């Protein structure tokens, strides 16, 4: 390799109490797809923020084509040909596509010309987009196209992608990969961050692995097994969830012909949903975000009330019962949004344990709260699920996403539910913690509970579920036995590629 496009040399960045990056060095070659791997909190985000000029390194230097490169702000990074697609989309819901794209450009042309260019580029790369649609109305996949096109319009030399595929259907992933390969063939380098090791094996030329802020190794993904890479990330050998053979009991929860109007302007209406889950069974529900997942969870948990007969538990109607009444009957739920839905961000873990555990754990007597027992319950969750925190008195907000997720799931699992509904149980959680959470769901089912797992991670659903159904625009497909389903079949159940086409230039 001649002069690399970007060379990182001994980058270090410390925050109070934690060294996010510790003398990290690696090179990204011209036209190379370079993967950056690591667990949650390994320092990947900080590293790419330094490259993009959002964070200044404490020491170390970067060379861009052999020249010193010290971006003071993202504007300068963009001027030097570095573009970034963010993990949490950096889009403005109330603005339209063209306005969103204009905001990410240095010297945007007139709106009319920009709209024409958006159409042209989006069609060239097989990512059709209407420049005048409001971003709040777009699906997750379409939003990502907005971000990608925003980058492509600036002719980047290096494209940074932070977990781009977590919200896409398999078909959309395939098209994204074709787009990336086309970019690579045009000489663009790509720095690709993902948890999904199989993706990295098909796409990337080279991988750098970070652990606790240090560069712990490099490999060529196509020649390394996913398991080896995962073990390099974790630093120890990895447990794969074990599923024991189980007998299914009678039907625990039963939804018949349920239709619910959309709760808000950006929500999805549920249309004629049928669902049955038996004791000991794990029902996996796939689908791209925004197709009714949150609404379905609301109906199951009792946040959204329906006709009494539409939702039945052991044959008894519970459609008119709210979340607390359902908890008393054994129907527990863990929603997707950790901060603000599953947990109250500014309350301590003990208080959060009280919020959902008061009924089933007997933490509340005659209107008085038993804080001693609650603290013990919180500590039990922390030990059982290996939540890394100084103690149950810490605010939920202070935990990293993965740790809080373990707490939120653990809190429900330990309450010994008859029916557990989880949405995105391992979203943003690293491989080892995800395996632990999945194992706990399998164990719960083995003890005879019915589990409904809503997720966008198909590998996860295939790993744990007994039957599989997909949500598409508020409709739930007929469930099928999970064993033996192919990725193509699942993609079709999820509604195909949503109008995407392969790049045709």
């Amino acid at each position: 390799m001649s002069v690399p496009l970007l060379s990182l040399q001994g980058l270090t960045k410390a925050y109070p109490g934690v060294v996010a990056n510790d003398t990290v060095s690696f090179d990204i070659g011209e036209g190379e797809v370079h993967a950056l791997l690591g667990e949650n909190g390994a320092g990947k985000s900080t590293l790419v923020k330094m490259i993009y000029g959002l964070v200044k390194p404490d020491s170390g230097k970067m060379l861009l084509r052999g020249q010193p490169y010290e971006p003071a702000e993202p504007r300068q990074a963009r001027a030097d040909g570095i573009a970034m697609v963010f993990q949490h989309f950096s889009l403005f819901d109330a603005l339209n596509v063209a306005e969103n794209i204009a905001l990410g450009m240095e010297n945007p042309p007139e709106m009319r010309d920009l709209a024409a260019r958006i159409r042209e580029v989006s069609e060239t790369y097989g990512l059709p987009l209407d420049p005048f649609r409001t971003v709040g109305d777009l699906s997750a996949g379409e939003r990502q196209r907005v971000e990608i096109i925003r980058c492509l319009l600036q002719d980047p030399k290096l494209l940074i992608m932070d977990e781009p595929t977590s919200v896409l259907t398999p078909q959309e992933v395939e098209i994204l990969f074709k787009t990336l390969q086309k970019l690579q063939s045009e000489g663009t380098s790509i720095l690709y961050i993902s948890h999904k090791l199989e993706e990295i094996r098909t796409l990337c030329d080279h991988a750098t692995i970070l652990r606790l802020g240090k560069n712990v190794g490099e490999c060529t993904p196509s020649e390394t097994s996913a398991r080896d890479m995962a073990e390099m990330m974790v630093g120890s050998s990895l447990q794969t969830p074990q599923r024991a053979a189980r007998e299914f009991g009678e039907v625990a929860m039963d939804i018949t012909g349920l239709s619910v109007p959309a709760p808000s302007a950006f929500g999805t209406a549920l249309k004629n949903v049928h669902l049955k889950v038996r004791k000991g069974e794990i029902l996996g529900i796939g689908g791209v975000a925004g197709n009714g997942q949150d609404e379905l969870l609301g109906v199951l948990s009792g946040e959204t009330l329906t006709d009494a007969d539409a939702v039945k538990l052991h044959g008894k109607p519970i459609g008119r019962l709210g979340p607390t009444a359902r908890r008393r009957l054994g129907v527990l739920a863990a929603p997707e949004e950790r901060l603000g839905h599953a947990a109250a961000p500014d309350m301590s873990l003990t208080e959060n344990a009280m919020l959902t555990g008061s009924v089933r754990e007997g933490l509340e007597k005659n209107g008085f709260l038993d804080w001693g027992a609650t603290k013990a319950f919180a500590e039990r969750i922390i030990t059982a699920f290996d939540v890394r925190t100084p103690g149950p008195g810490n605010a939920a907000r202070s935990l990293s996403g993965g740790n809080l997720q373990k707490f939120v799931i653990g809190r429900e699992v330990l309450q010994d539910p008859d029916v557990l509904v989880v949405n995105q149980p391992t979203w943003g959680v690293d491989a080892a913690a995800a395996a632990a959470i999945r194992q706990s769901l399998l164990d719960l089912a083995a003890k005879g509970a019915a589990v409904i797992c809503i997720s966008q991670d198909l590998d996860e659903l295939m790993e744990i579920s007994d039957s599989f159904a997909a949500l598409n625009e508020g409709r739930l497909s007929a469930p099928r036995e999970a064993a033996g389903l192919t990725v193509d079949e699942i993609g079709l159940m999820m509604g195909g590629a949503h109008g995407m086409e392969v790049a045709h230039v």
Partner: protein
Amino acid sequence: MDLSAINPVLLIASLMVAATPLLLAAIGELVVEKSGVLNLGVEGMMIVGAIAGFATAVESGSPLLGFVAAAFAGAALSVLFAILTQFAQANQVASGLSLTLFGLGLSALMGQSYVGIKPPRMGDIHIPVLSDLPVIGPILFGHDIILYFGIALTAAVWWMLKYSRMGLVLRAVGENHDAAHALGYKVLRIRLMAILFGGACAGLGGAYISLIRVPQWTEGMTAGIGWIALALVVFASWKPWRALLGAYLFGGVTVVQLNLQAAGVAIPVEYLAMSPYLITILVLVILSADKSSAPASLGRNFHASR
């Protein structure tokens, strides 16, 4: 009762005067809220602008200089709000409320020696021919320059928000400050500018009351116009032209009810006095029944943490 004493031409001309303080304050606050900041101190900035403008006009003899001073005074008070909320991360609601209380007290102190004085008069413009037209002349072409400035400002803010890059960035910051920061926009700096603009506009509005509409200085003379301006921004769905409409409606009902009182209509004065507030809010609530589009980051403090 004698309704024939009410002259419709004078009525319309004076409703425009009555509406201008409200319009100026509302347009300023609209820009502030579009940037994602909720400044409840409008009333305080108005009253400080009223006394600063009044005092400067009396001392210098120039009303125009008074308006300039009022804009500076309003902006200066808003700096206090900006420091508290943008840099010290204080709660915006509490800071805004205390700004109003502070402004009311400060203005009473500053105004002690100005009670009962008449300020120099601001001349109305006179355009040959046009201003002499019957009916249209006094309504459209016979006002002071600040009134026209208010309308021009509405047009400018509308154009800026809709068509200019500055407006786009401002809306983006108010919509999602984290994303704007990630794209490299200076959230705090943009918000500081918006807050200063809002303060200056509120100051102008206050001075319009003390120099033109009333014109004299009394304590607490803004009499809740600042609060109406805040409500107006919300009910106008953050749209400048709707704010203008609402301000004119409020001004119109105010003037009409004063005229009715003078004409001795047999409705208790209290009902007449509350009518501008009721009718303005009612109409704007109906208008804003469509998709209300509050800036998504409104009232949330921004901190560029990692």
